[in-house]
């Protein structure tokens, strides 16, 4: 049999070049999902709108937020909750990749180990940015009146993204530990619901029983919410900004290390 196969050789570049290239290739892969996977597309656009409208109009009248209007109070909370939910796509994506065998393929390639995880987590940032912009626009339409300057918005966005990234990497760990796609959905659900509801997202913490209140006021999600709330509508900042940044950064670093470690071990046991 005749052969006209031209052998190809890897291109010569520095190690760093290829690590960044691997990241870029897999980020591109995962971001395509936002558009092509109908589930993701719909939840990216409609979930934030639905949450905002439900809380604004169903609970809004019954919750006393003092001098601040409920829609102004609610906005930071709903923004952070929807970012936390959006970050669970990493968990689902990672479990799906393992179940479908595509991780085996990636692992057999001369690519950076963490690139699959980076692809999913960075995509969470992109998806959450889209959701957040939609939420701001819908917020304006239903009476949200922020006092923030452009600078405040930028810092608020930075805090939100740092938090999102941290949750995404935690969610990568959940994805790596789950055996089934149903399992991982359940796991992220029981994780995100309590940490976002036992916070100052939807109601002032003052009305909670003391133990719950102590948790709610000191957990990272509340600091993130209060920081963004302060930046957008001018409530007191206190230490919330710093604490939000330090918590998020800490969770991010620890989760990254743990996730990459599990990824390597799990697939090469």
């Amino acid at each position, binding site marked *: 049999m005749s*052969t006209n196969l031209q052998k190809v050789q890897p291109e010569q570049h520095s190690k760093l070049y290829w690590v960044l290239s691997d990241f870029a*290739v897999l980020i591109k892969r995962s971001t395509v999902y936002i558009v092509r996977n109908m589930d993701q597309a719909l939840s990216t656009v409609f979930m934030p709108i639905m949450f905002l409208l439900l809380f604004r109009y169903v609970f809004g009248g019954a919750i006393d937020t003092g001098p601040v209007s409920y829609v102004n109070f609610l906005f930071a909370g709903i923004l952070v909750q929807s970012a936390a939910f959006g970050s669970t796509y990493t968990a689902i994506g990672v479990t799906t990749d393992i179940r479908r065998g595509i991780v085996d393929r990636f692992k057999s390639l*001369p690519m950076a180990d963490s690139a699959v995880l980076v692809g999913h987590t960075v995509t969470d940032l992109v998806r959450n940015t889209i959701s957040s912009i939609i939420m701001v626009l819908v917020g304006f339409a239903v009476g949200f009146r922020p006092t923030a300057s452009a600078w405040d918005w930028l810092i608020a966005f930075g805090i939100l993204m740092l938090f999102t990234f941290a949750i995404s990497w935690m969610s990568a760990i959940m994805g790596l530990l789950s055996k089934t796609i149903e399992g991982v959905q359940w796991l992220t659900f029981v994780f995100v619901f309590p940490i976002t509801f036992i916070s100052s997202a939807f109601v002032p913490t003052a009305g909670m029983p003391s133990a719950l209140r102590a948790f709610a006021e000191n957990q990272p999600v509340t600091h993130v919410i209060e920081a963004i709330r302060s930046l957008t509508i001018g409530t007191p900042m206190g230490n919330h900004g710093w604490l939000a940044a330090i918590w998020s950064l800490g969770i991010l670093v620890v989760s990254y290390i743990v996730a990459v470690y599990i990824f390597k071990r799990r697939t090469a046991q």
Partner: protein
Amino acid sequence: MKKNDYSIVAKGLKKSFGKLIVLDGVDIKVKRGTILALLGPNGAGKTTTVRIMATLLKADGGSVTIEGHDVSERPDKVRSVIGLTGQYAAVDEYLTGRENLRMIGRLYHLGKADVIRRTEELLEQFDLVEAADRTAKTYSGGMRRRLDLAASLIATPPVIFLDEPTTGLDPRSRLNLWDNIEKLAAEGTTILLTTQHLEEADRLANSIAVIDGGKVIAEGTADELKDKVGRERIQFTLETDADLKKAIKLVDGETLQVDEKRKSLSVVHDSGVYKLKDILEKFEKSKIRVANMSLAKPTLDDVFLQLTGHKATAENNNENGGKK
């Protein structure tokens, strides 16, 4: 033979998952540019062997070198010389065929121009040009397998692992995939494929290693293995004992087997139709009445029964142990 005539050399591979011993000293050598079929039932250790060779799993003992690179010491080197196609088509459903190939090409660290050229070549070779811009989600099982195989070839690796490449495919897709595998071998690629079907091993492989219970229990060419079991046989069942007696006298030869209870006899079918016609004519002349006639190919079960004393379709199904 010199050591570097072999692309794949595995020595004494051992692997256990908990108390379950999956590999118990597997030795395999594959000569450069040949196809070796790893033949065995579910749970024999085929997938585990491939996963260790493809750097996805660490062995508990033993060693593997691929093109001279040790899998545990230089997995990065090994990864740049292998292509892997697993049991299920590992393609990205939401990417198109073309996007899938380009993605894998870049992850093999090929240059952009090479990636584009190879992608188009492979789409052509695997008959996927028309489907190239559709997402893989819309592909049939056969198309996915072809895309999966194409992806593992994009960097023209000298060594390819195919783990049960045709499981679940319809006969036409299977033939198509076989053609492609044969072409690869003709181009000088070393291929290790696993299969549960003797027919597949027979058609494709230069040599076959039969694996059972985590050990290679027989090795050789398809013909050598079949000789151990017996080749395709023609079997006649006759109407009466008298017919059988007469028939035995007519059909002699060393491959004759007689089952008096069933009033049947069988002979090896080497010379094909000619022999069949010859026998039938003799029977007719002697007025021997044939109740039934059938052809029987040796199956994997026959090989296994012969080699191990137990059936190939073993009750244990532990092959999946390595995928957790």
